[in-house]
């Protein structure tokens, strides 16, 4: 287990950190789960996971003083699912102001016949842009999505997925990246993406 594979997982208050930790363990990465600013600041890489609601997650980040720390981080940061949504300016979920690292807002998905909400299951990546995080992951690859809110694609989007129109699946601004799907539950493709992240410096 090398230092290079160390990653700090921000404890954003969701109950599902275990599956992410196990996925990282399978890749040989040492993980620390923390809300400690010093630990997070010193980490070679930071993961921001999240389930539950945007409001509750932002409250927790604020309570830990992380809402001001996270945008200043300079190492690779990856937001997963709600963790990605928190990187945007705001979320329609509870009209929550978020971290403002990625431009744009997260809107509610509206159910329609043949298109239930939450968007739940395996969907493909489309319009995939070159990026170290997506190395070896072609358009058409399936990932596991579970979400009821989504962002519309813009210049920061690295890949989309189609669910009643294109939705942000992967986004990036500088050292900050986010994925709407759950790589820890996306089979070999998800492991590949996490492994790509663990190689970033």
């Amino acid at each position, binding site marked *: 287990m090398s230092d290079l594979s160390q990653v700090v997982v921000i404890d954003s208050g969701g*109950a599902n950190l275990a599956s992410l930790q196990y996925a990282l363990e399978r890749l040989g990465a040492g993980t620390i789960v923390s809300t400690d600013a010093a630990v997070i600041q010193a980490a070679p890489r930071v993961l921001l996971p999240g389930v539950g609601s945007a409001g509750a997650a932002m409250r927790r980040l604020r309570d830990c003083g992380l809402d001001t720390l996270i945008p200043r981080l300079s190492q690779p940061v990856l937001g997963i699912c709600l963790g990605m949504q928190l990187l945007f300016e705001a979320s329609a979920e509870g009209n929550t102001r978020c971290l403002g690292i990625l431009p744009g807002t997260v809107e509610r998905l509206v159910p329609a016949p043949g298109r239930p909400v939450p968007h739940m*299951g395996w969907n493909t990546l489309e319009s995939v842009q070159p990026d170290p995080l997506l190395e070896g992951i072609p358009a058409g690859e399936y990932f596991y999505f*579970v979400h*009821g809110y989504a962002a519309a694609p813009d210049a920061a989007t690295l890949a989309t997925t189609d669910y009643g129109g294109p939705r942000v699946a992967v986004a990036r601004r500088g050292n900050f990246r986010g994925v709407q799907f*759950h790589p820890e539950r*996306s*089979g070999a493709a998800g*492991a590949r993406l996490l492994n790509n992240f663990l190689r970033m410096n």
Partner: protein
Amino acid sequence: MLARRIIPCLDVRDGQVVKGVRFRDHRVVGDILELACRYRDEGADELVFYDITASPEGRSVDRAWVQRVAKVLDIPFCVAGGIRSVADAEAVLNAGAEKISVNSPALADPGLIGRLAERFGAQCVVVGIDSETTASGYRVYQFTGDPDRSRDSGRDTLQWVREVQERGAGEVVLNCMASDGVRQGYDLAQLAAVRAVCEVPLVASGGAGAIAHFESVFREAGVDAALAASVFHSGAIAIPDLKASLRRAGIEVRP
């Protein structure tokens, strides 16, 4: 495109996978981890583990196996059985499950659905419904894991499907009891009726016996996922063959 999901269901009793016919006469079909890994490798999109003895006997889910499963699986899985409180659910989710499913406890305490959704998000909260076709329409049954206690819960299935969504369910698994374990096909009429009132993902359960049954439940009932147990456990249907057939039939599935 969002793929239709194929979900093997592993009924768990005393730490082993069992299967009965019409909810009776359960026999052991294999070890949990062994079957979980087999289905993962064969391309299952998700797994459901249902502790069929937990709810009737007042026990909780044995969490040791949940963690063992979470360590090896890189696909989502849901745990059902004996989840009566936010604390029960939290323990299962903390052990690494993606979702929890409530059935009888939600009938006894419908407010549980909302409390779970508020704490963990709707996407974690699955409501399982055992439904029987009767002279008075589709009826929700409870305590179905125990033939001596299984009975009409006093609720109409379509009404209950509407209510659980309002309360915050993120997915509905509809188990059509008359079809379960007899391999004559899913109850397409009932599933289509539920689909019409279900705006969250809907999983069909009960009756899969042939590849054609999966094709028709996706095509005719419009469900998001099809759950089956005995046809997979027995080897009667191999998931790679099933998915290849569905793809040939023009139904989107993950390779």
